[in-house]
């Protein structure tokens, strides 16, 4: 079976980001999607702390400590970008103005419930940040994650057993095995990477998958 490397999943997501899209990339792996968007597409990245038009990392020595992204990394601003406060930034998110949010996930359910902010370990100090606002607000939520946990347990389940980030919010799941759409009929495989059969992927999935339409 073919398992993509994380960078390859990011590249696969990037292929689906259209020209002119307003996009928020979650902290961690989703941030890498920006590295693979084709040069002929102009994509405007949003950072929830209050930036539209996030540019690449600054040259060493030119960092502005005030100019960071949501992952607390130094960034730059593209020409045409701008700044705003946190309430306006979340108004943008919650108000449905972002075309796509790409988020990591612990689990996704059959109806697109997302669990990506907490585990069931109550001894671990919590943090939620902007995850719940992105989940309910973006026009489309794409999840980018490994298909299974490290010990090969499915992360795509009938019901999430981790605390939810949002109900029925995920539109599409990009894993290291396949691309899966959340539809009214259920989870439908959109794309099997070369070398993977529906049966292989189904075996690592906790809920029935529909074949590509």
């Amino acid at each position, binding site marked *: 079976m073919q398992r993509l490397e994380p960078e390859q999943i990011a590249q696969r997501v990037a292929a689906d980001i259209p*020209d002119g899209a307003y996009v928020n990339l979650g902290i961690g792996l989703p941030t890498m999607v920006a590295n693979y968007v084709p040069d002929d597409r102009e994509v405007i990245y949003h950072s929830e702390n209050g930036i539209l*038009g996030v540019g690449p990392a600054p040259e060493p020595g030119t960092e502005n400590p005030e100019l960071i992204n949501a992952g607390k990394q130094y960034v730059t601003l593209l*020409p*045409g970008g*701008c700044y705003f406060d946190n309430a306006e930034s979340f*108004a943008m998110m*919650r*108000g449905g*103005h972002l075309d796509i949010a790409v988020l990591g996930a612990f689990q996704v359910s059959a109806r697109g419930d997302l669990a990506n902010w907490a585990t069931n370990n109550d001894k671990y100090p919590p943090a939620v940040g902007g995850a719940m606002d992105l989940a309910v607000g973006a026009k489309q939520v794409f999840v980018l994650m490994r298909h299974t946990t490290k010990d090969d347990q499915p992360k795509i389940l009938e019901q999430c057993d981790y605390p939810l980030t949002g109900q029925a919010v995920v539109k599409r799941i990009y894993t290291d095995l396949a691309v899966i759409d959340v539809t009214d009929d259920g989870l439908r495989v959109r794309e099997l990477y070369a070398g993977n059969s529906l049966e292989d992927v189904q075996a690592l999935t906790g809920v029935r998958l529909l074949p590509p339409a």
Partner: protein
Amino acid sequence: MIDKTIDSFSEAVNDIRDGDTVMIGGFGSSGIPLELIEALRLHGARELVIVSNNAGVAEEGIASLLRDRLVRKIVCSFPRSAGSIWFERLWERGELELELLPQGTLSERIRAAGAGIGGFFTPTGYGTRLAEGKETRVIDGRGYVLEAPLPADFALLKADRADQWGNLVYDTAGRNFNPIMATAARTTVVEVGQIVPVGDLNPECVVTPGIFVNRVIARKENRHAAA
């Protein structure tokens, strides 16, 4: 390349349909997109619901839409002004529905629609005629009225300058309702004095980020200077 510029005023409004809700920026004579309103009038969509602070004076702006009987309803805080003859005439004849709102409730409802808020409690209007029929609640001893978000199909706005990404800056008090209406419409169309290249606007001074804007068009008299 993202370029939200369009060249034709008629094209800027030609997908507005009968029955649509159209927000129109402006306060008094300031910040009104007069050329877009004229384009809408010529386009001729009917049964419109207009959301605006005022209802136009003389034969100008929104008054011209009223005169041509294109408007079914107006959502407004201050429809009557010196010279608001078409509003008064149609209202007195019962030919125009009016939803009258306190100005801060009007602007907060517009903001709520743009910000994904499902409703909010405002103290404004509590215990007055304008709260009749609305849900109320006493919170910490103070009376509040529940108000719903107010979204629109289109927003027709005026700004001073735009870039091709749709970032906007305004001229003094010309902001008024324009920045919030930009956030609340499915399609936001902005008439400006000048369209400048991306990167020309100071990112610390952009008032309306381009994400809220779908189309920008330079006024005809400024078109040459803008080129």
